[in-house]
């Protein structure tokens, strides 16, 4: 006890400074930290020097970043001060203060019975946080004022169910062939069937709209369309289908062309043939179609494509996680035996295998599945299989470690007891080893399945298939309602899985 307090007292009485206190102060004014080092406070001195050096370095970097086009250093500083007066100003003042304070600190440290105090470290921390704030581009003002911009997006993601269903529509249409350009061999007019909608175009050939050299529109042939046997008193849309496919609604004067049918279900309208780029390789007359189309709600509702796709991909994701876990378990079991110290401590060779296995497993485990997906996608192409490979690789390493630790912690007592009953080797394994292994194996495996399903959504983002793949596509298409549906499915699945896996593990452990 006595020697303890002596040690403490001795440590309080520091050896005297090498130089008189004012010299220390001046030394630190020249090179911050030097005075402290001379006062035999080497750690403190080096810390102050390193801190000040990095603060000045980082500040210089920020000034250049703010004003890199300026020719001279002074011009840069002025430009940076103009752009961020508070930040640059405060940092300059703070740095100068730190420099001066380090001199004061050295002066105090050099005097017997005096200490520099902790203020200098508070100052250093404050300067680092100031730099951190600017380097990471934190902008609270923007965060508050532009918060409302997130709402249109967020509301779609949070409640996307408006896009979960679509109205079922019924289409009534008739089409007429148009030859482009006219030739001696005109197309046959469409046949008339009583009761069925019918469309007649006059003339039945012509030229598409075109652009002249000044990019002015040269209108194409005007077609007179006569329709009959459509639904009466109803809007009818006019569409165009080129032979290359990809039909589109015709616009005239920037408006979609539409016509109201009369009480007989007939209409007449003039339409200028639309502009469409025809590939130079397409020679000779081609047949386009003009289409009249009525679309009506049936009142029925069906599940939307994003919803169905999300369900489909979610199922794919769950199975992706399951398959990866299954492959992982199958391969992790033998690996874990090689990585269990108690099994491998027999000879130098087996110890070598143990260290190599452990080493490889640690490396594989420390590489994120996201990276493994990129490698696997090179190997087997984008899609769920790449995801399975990536997750399997990671699972082997992660489970192998957990399993091997379970093997290492096995209790030898029951093995001895079962052997003593006259049991065979197999019986001993079955009655003394397996019961001890199963609970941790099951527990870890289910935990891993849980992780893998969660990971498989992330893995999809970089091309590993599953719902993540769908999600990232919807986000890139700015289809936030559909993305919201996918997000909801992920959240629901993960929550259910979390609960289920916790329950199962509860039973086994």
């Amino acid at each position, binding site marked *: 006890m006595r020697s303890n307090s002596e040690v403490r007292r001795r440590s309080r009485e520091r050896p005297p400074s090498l130089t008189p206190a004012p010299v220390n102060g001046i030394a630190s004014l020249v090179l911050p930290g030097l005075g402290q080092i001379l006062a035999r406070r080497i750690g403190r001195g080096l810390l102050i020097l390193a801190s000040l050096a990095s603060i000045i370095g980082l500040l210089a970097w920020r000034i250049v970043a703010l004003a890199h086009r300026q020719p001279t250093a002074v011009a840069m500083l002025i430009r940076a001060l103009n752009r961020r007066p508070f930040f640059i100003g405060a940092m300059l003042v703070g740095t100068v203060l730190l420099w001066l304070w380090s001199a004061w600190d050295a002066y105090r440290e050099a005097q017997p019975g005096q200490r520099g105090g902790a203020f200098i470290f508070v100052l250093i921390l404050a300067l680092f946080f100031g730099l951190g704030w600017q380097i990471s581009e934190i902008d609270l003002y923007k965060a508050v004022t532009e918060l409302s911009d997130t709402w249109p997006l967020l509301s779609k993601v949070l409640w996307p169910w408006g896009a979960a269903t679509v109205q079922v529509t019924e289409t009534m249409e008739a089409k007429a062939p148009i030859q482009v350009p006219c030739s001696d061999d005109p197309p046959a007019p469409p046949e008339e069937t009583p009761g069925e909608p019918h469309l007649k175009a006059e003339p039945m050939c012509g030229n598409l709209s075109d652009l002249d050299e000044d990019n002015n529109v040269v209108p194409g042939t005007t077609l007179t369309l006569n329709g009959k046997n459509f639904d009466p008193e109803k809007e009818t849309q006019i569409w165009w289908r080129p032979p290359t496919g990809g039909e589109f609604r015709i616009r005239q004067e920037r408006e979609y062309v539409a016509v109201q049918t009369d009480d007989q279900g007939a209409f007449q309208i003039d339409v200028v043939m639309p502009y469409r780029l025809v590939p130079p390789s397409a020679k000779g007359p081609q047949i386009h179609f003009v289409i009249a189309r009525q679309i009506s709600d049936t009142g029925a509702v069906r599940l939307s494509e994003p919803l169905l796709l999300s369900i489909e991909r979610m199922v794919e994701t769950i199975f992706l996680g399951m398959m990866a876990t299954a492959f992982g378990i199958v391969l992790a079991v033998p690996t874990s035996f090689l990585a269990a110290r108690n099994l491998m401590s027999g000879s130098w060779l087996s110890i070598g295998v143990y260290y190599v296995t452990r080493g490889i497993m640690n490396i594989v485990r420390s590489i994120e599945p996201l990276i493994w997906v990129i490698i696997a996608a090179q190997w087997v192409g984008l899609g769920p299989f790449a995801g399975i490979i990536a997750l399997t690789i990671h699972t082997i390493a992660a489970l192998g470690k957990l399993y091997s630790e379970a093997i290492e912690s096995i*209790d030898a007592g029951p093995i001895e007891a079962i052997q003593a009953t006259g*049991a065979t080797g197999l019986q001993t394994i*079955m009655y003394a080893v397996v019961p001890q292994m199963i609970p941790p194996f099951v527990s870890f495996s289910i935990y891993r399945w849980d992780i893998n399903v969660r990971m498989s959504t992330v893995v999809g983002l970089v091309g590993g298939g599953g719902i993540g793949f769908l999600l990232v596509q919807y986000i890139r298409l700015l289809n936030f309602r559909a993305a919201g549906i996918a997000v909801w499915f992920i959240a629901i699945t993960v929550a259910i899985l979390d609960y289920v896996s916790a329950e199962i593990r509860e039973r086994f452990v």
Partner: protein
Amino acid sequence: MLEVKNLTKIYDDGTVALRNVSFTVHDGEFLIIIGLSGSGKSTLLRCINRLIQPTEGQIVWDGMDVTAADASELRKIRRQIGMIFQHFNLVRRSKVITNVIAGRLGYVSQWSSLLHRFPKEDRQKALAALERLGIADQAQKRADELSGGQQQRVGIARALMQDPKIILADEPVASLDPVLAHSILGHLEMLNKEEGISILCSLHYLDLVQQYASRVIGLRAGEIVYRGTQQEIRAMTDEEFKDIYGQEAVRVGAGLGTSVGGGA
């Protein structure tokens, strides 16, 4: 009858655990081995059913040479020798009944036992054994849900399932409260008296040794340093005890479970 002749065990690291140990356990005896921790008691018991391979010497069980037995002969010998342990050595996560019925493994067919199939009589026998030890109501619980005393009784039930002619007990009460020690040794005594099962037991507590032993051998540093009859051990003084345990031993009075420990 169990005969141990000139048994020596030297571990791979050169430790001599047993040196030239010879003794005989006659049928129906309650032979207690005393000695400090590290004196070789556990090694001795484990050499008898060859859980540990003896270095030299011979063990003869009912005329069969245990030391020379091949694997299948050894299993037939082992199944006649029950064993209970200081730490019970139950499979903690298995049910009590599963632990007990494992005592039949030496008798049943290997392949059906791997599927946990046992003859009906064996199940009844297991329940009867638990009944006898007063823990029949715990049969369906997991072994680790039981108290220490109950777990040791499960251990005895497991040994009983082997229809043993001898039970090796390796410090069966060392990890139990002194109060429970009498209960456990009482059960062993009952088996000894009623069934004529020989007991070879290592113990620490002097009071217990004096009460239960029909004969005693003392081990020190792997050698037998004392042999005594029931009368001799009951008349034993602290001085004689110190001789067995070595001069550093001090008898620590702790009421019921008085024991002799190593130097403080």
